[in-house]
């Protein structure tokens, strides 16, 4: 009985996780067009990975995203954000400026618009997702 329940759960989760992740990345990339953004989408992506670790095992989840890879992605997210900020200083404007330093803003309403905003959202999304997942792993490993 218990085996069968676990089998159903595992198969359903295997089907559901890609959809959750695609939705999470949609929320991240369309953050400047619709409700959402880096923080919300990153949390959705993190929820999919936590779901994987809950259904299978924390050790199997750690194989997908080890601590070393997690810290790499986390640092990359933060450095990506700061580097995009220094882009403004390199061109001759202020830190983290967008439109004033001549970055093309595009047509409002299209996916490629808003200058640096989608790129910054992507960095925030990666950072938030990896942070929440590794917080979960580090708390769950401890028991």
């Amino acid at each position, binding site marked *: 009985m218990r085996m069968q329940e676990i089998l159903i759960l595992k198969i359903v989760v295997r089907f559901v996780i890609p959809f959750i992740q695609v939705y999470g990345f949609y929320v991240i990339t369309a953050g400047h067009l*619709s409700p959402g953004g880096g923080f919300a989408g990153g949390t959705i992506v993190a929820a999919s990975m936590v779901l994987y670790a809950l259904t299978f095992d924390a050790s199997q989840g750690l194989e997908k995203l080890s601590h070393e890879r997690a810290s790499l992605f986390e640092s990359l997210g933060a450095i990506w954000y700061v580097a995009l900020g220094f882009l403004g200083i390199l061109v001759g404007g202020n830190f983290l400026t967008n439109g004033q330093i001549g970055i093309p803003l595009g047509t*409002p309403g299209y996916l490629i618009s808003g200058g640096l905003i989608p790129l910054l959202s992507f960095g925030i999304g990666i950072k938030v997702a990896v942070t929440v997942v590794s917080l979960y792993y580090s*708390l769950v490993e401890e028991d």
Partner: protein
Amino acid sequence: MAEALAALGQNYFFYYALILFMVGFYTTLSHSNILKKIIGINIMETSIFLFFVALGYVEGGQAPIMGRGAEGGPYMNPLPSALILTGIVVSVSITAFALALMVKLYHFYGTLDADEIVMLRGERQ
């Protein structure tokens, strides 16, 4: 006095945040289990977010998204929603750190009860 009563009747939306804050406050104070204290603090934080976001409401306004279908009418105030994001992030970080400290306390004392921990500390000294 009449003005205050009229304001109390008009602003009944804020009562939800108020009740939530009281629930969190009571939970934090009345339980000696540290995990329940953390849950109470989280409930209080949620009530603050609810109150702050509710300040940006405009009667009959639209969501502040200027896409197709936006008629240019009154919009909700986007500023409280943007500012409270900082609060949510700090809340998540503080909860994670508190849980980590709680795990360490459980390893050290073998219990999560705050009163028992105080007693154990007294015995050690």
